[in-house]
């Protein structure tokens, strides 16, 4: 139940925030160096990082619960215990992937 709502909420976030950010990133890459520098400055600001971390978590959560939906689409995983375990696995997996990604970016990369 909660995972289903999360799937929708993260999907909407990716639809609006994710696609606009992707488009802006590509436009700034295609344009002048100053525009790309602006993108980097805004994306690297505390608020920008918060949005990026939120969107990456949304991507992982939506992708993992999407895999769960694909599994249920073929008729598997409807047993109460297994269904709940899969739902919780998507939450844990999404948080682990988000933390690992940003630990690497901010810790190793930066």
């Amino acid at each position, binding site marked *: 139940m909660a995972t289903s709502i999360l799937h929708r909420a993260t999907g909407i976030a990716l639809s609006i925030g994710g696609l606009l950010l992707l488009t802006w990133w*590509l436009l700034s890459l295609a344009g002048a160096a100053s525009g790309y520098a602006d993108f980097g400055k805004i994306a690297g600001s505390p608020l920008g990082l918060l949005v990026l971390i939120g969107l990456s978590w949304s991507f992982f959560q939506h992708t993992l619960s999407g895999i769960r939906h694909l599994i249920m689409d073929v008729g598997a995983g409807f047993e109460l215990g297994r269904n709940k375990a899969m739902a919780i696995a998507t939450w844990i997996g999404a948080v682990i992937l988000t933390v690992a990604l940003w630990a690497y970016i901010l810790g190793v990369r930066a």
Partner: protein
Amino acid sequence: MTGPKDMGRHDRTSVPDGKSPLGQVRGLGSARHGGDHWIRERVSSIALLLLGIWFIVSLLLLPDWSQPTIREWLASPLGFVPMALFVYLSFDHSVDGLKVVIDDYQGDEGGRMMWHLVSLFLHVGVGALALFALAKIAFGATS
């Protein structure tokens, strides 16, 4: 069954032949394309699963995220082609997903059609802009 309480949204489309909405459609069979949207949404989801992994791994494998480095990557065949597919399918999947959301919250049929159009036009417009930017990176002169 046709008391005042049943005069819901179904009643506006019913023909005065005494049949209930269910009676009107019974026996007509399937339109044979009802599953199209459902299947398309899942096909793009599987493609995006692979392309999403490719996108993140590729970004992490780049030596740095400077403008020249990323442009060089996106101008190469193995950068441009998956990226173009990733952009196209992201917008495609977004249209499909938001269509379900609109259908769930917008009960009025006219409103549904209007929001579907608004969503479609915005996706096509912004998506075309994203693909233009990518094409400019790959084929355009450096500016």
